[in-house]
């Protein structure tokens, strides 16, 4: 436990020191929230006010940015530069390292959610959500599943240089297709078919149902099941092919 706390402090320091993480995974969802909110915030989207629709979307976008994209990029870079290998030579156990790393990213996501909610309230007058318990559980489920997928993805990336490219090529289109920025209702059928398998689609449905329609998480069986299944898939890939050492040459 002492090792976990020590490593968590280190990981939080590392997170705040990283300009790339701070901007691309943490600030960008907030920037999009402000920009898009001021363009269609007052319109009606899928039966709710645009800014409300967008706020939930940006929380989902934040989850995939931080827990999936940020985590995957950080892990690949640490693996390929040899930091993971270096850590293996110390008495720090793998469980303490991985749990502290995930906790740091979950904390970053929690701060992000609070920032978006406060900003939504101040800029667009969006009331705070009232299903706090369900929302917390839903966010935790999504963030952990995206962490699992992020770690699983590292198995498919072989170089530090490729990390950002591969990750961006996956999560940015995914965020768009799943409807984080705009309602996917009027997308062409092909795109909606793709969106129908993406975990973010179900995560967005889940948090919109909780935040905008007052649903509780236990009424959301399908959404919860699909998100969890994706998370389990990521963890299975991670357990089977996670490596500590860089690829040679």
């Amino acid at each position, binding site marked *: 436990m002492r090792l976990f706390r020590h490593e968590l402090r280190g990981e939080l320091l590392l997170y705040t020191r990283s300009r790339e993480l701070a901007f691309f995974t943490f600030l960008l969802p907030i920037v999009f929230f402000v920009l898009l909110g001021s363009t269609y915030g007052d319109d009606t989207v899928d039966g709710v006010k645009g800014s409300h629709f967008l706020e939930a979307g940006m929380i989902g976008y934040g989850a995939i940015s931080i827990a999936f994209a940020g985590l995957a990029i950080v892990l690949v870079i640490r693996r390929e530069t040899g930091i993971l290998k270096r850590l293996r030579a110390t*008495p*720090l156990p793998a469980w303490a390292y991985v749990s502290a790393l995930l906790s740091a990213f979950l904390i970053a996501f929690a701060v992000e959610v609070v920032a978006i909610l406060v900003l939504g309230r101040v800029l667009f007058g969006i009331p705070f959500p009232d299903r706090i318990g369900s929302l917390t559980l839903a966010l935790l489920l999504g963030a952990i599943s995206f962490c699992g997928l992020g770690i699983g993805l590292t198995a498919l990336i072989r170089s530090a240089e490729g990390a950002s490219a591969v990750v961006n090529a996956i999560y940015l289109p995914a965020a768009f297709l799943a409807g984080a920025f705009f309602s996917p209702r009027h997308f062409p059928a092909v795109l909606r078919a793709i969106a129908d398998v993406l975990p973010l689609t179900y995560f967005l449905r889940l948090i919109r149902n909780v935040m905008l329609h007052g649903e509780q998480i236990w009424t959301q069986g399908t959404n919860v099941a699909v998100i969890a299944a994706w998370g389990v898939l990521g963890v299975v890939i991670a357990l089977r092919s996670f490596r500590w050492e860089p690829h040679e040459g």
Partner: protein
Amino acid sequence: MSAIVVRDLRKSYGALEAVGGISFEVERGEVFGLLGPNGAGKTTTVEILEGYRPRDGGVVEVLGADPATAEGEWREQIGVVLQSSAMYETLTAREMLRLFAGYYRKPRPVDEVVKLVGLEEKADERVRRLSGGQRRRLDLGLALVGDPELIFLDEPTTGFDPRARRRAWDTIRSLRSLGKTILLTTHYLDEAEHLADRVAVLSHGVVVAAGTPAELTGSVAATEITYRENGREVVLETDEPTRVLHELTTKALAEDRELEGLVVRRPSLEEVYLTLTEEHSE
């Protein structure tokens, strides 16, 4: 008890035999050098001893434990410097040391480590702003911060300029005087000669020679006597330099002749090493 015991260690990667049955022992408090050209099997050997790689055969004991199965407690006593200095670029040197210190139960005070590796002036500089030599010293500091008994240094000065190498050598010597056991790999002869109490020369995965640097230079070779006669260079190799030289000079004196450019030379470890590793590759 020896710090490291290796007996008939074997390791292959596919069809390639990287380590073909090597044996050596490292005593406590000793600096032991594994010497050899690139691809001789040094890093494979060290990484097996560090617990990174499984072996195919043989017996390995490091501080009384098998590195393939040892964990936590054993790692408290081991310090590792890998070939690449991987570090968090955004932390300062001191923060990096503090982070690693926290992984050990009884770390050495961070300020002491900073001094030991000579980074006092750069301690609060971000890692990314350190020079290659400074990074390498910080890397050494990370290996020392747990106050280990045994330290593995894999090519600790590769890519250093001569001054930085001297500094690194001083640091390694000061570790030795602290009573630490050090296993060092290098392809620099002079490094082994300066630092190691004993050396094993590896070539193509086997030990081709072992002993103190002095024994190695003594074992192979003959002393070399060169001079010029009628503008021609004459080279004599002999195991009895005193007798040969005496005969040579007696004769020259009798003929009232100068032995021009007379040089009597013991081969350096470098030449011994080249001979050994070349012989082996043929």
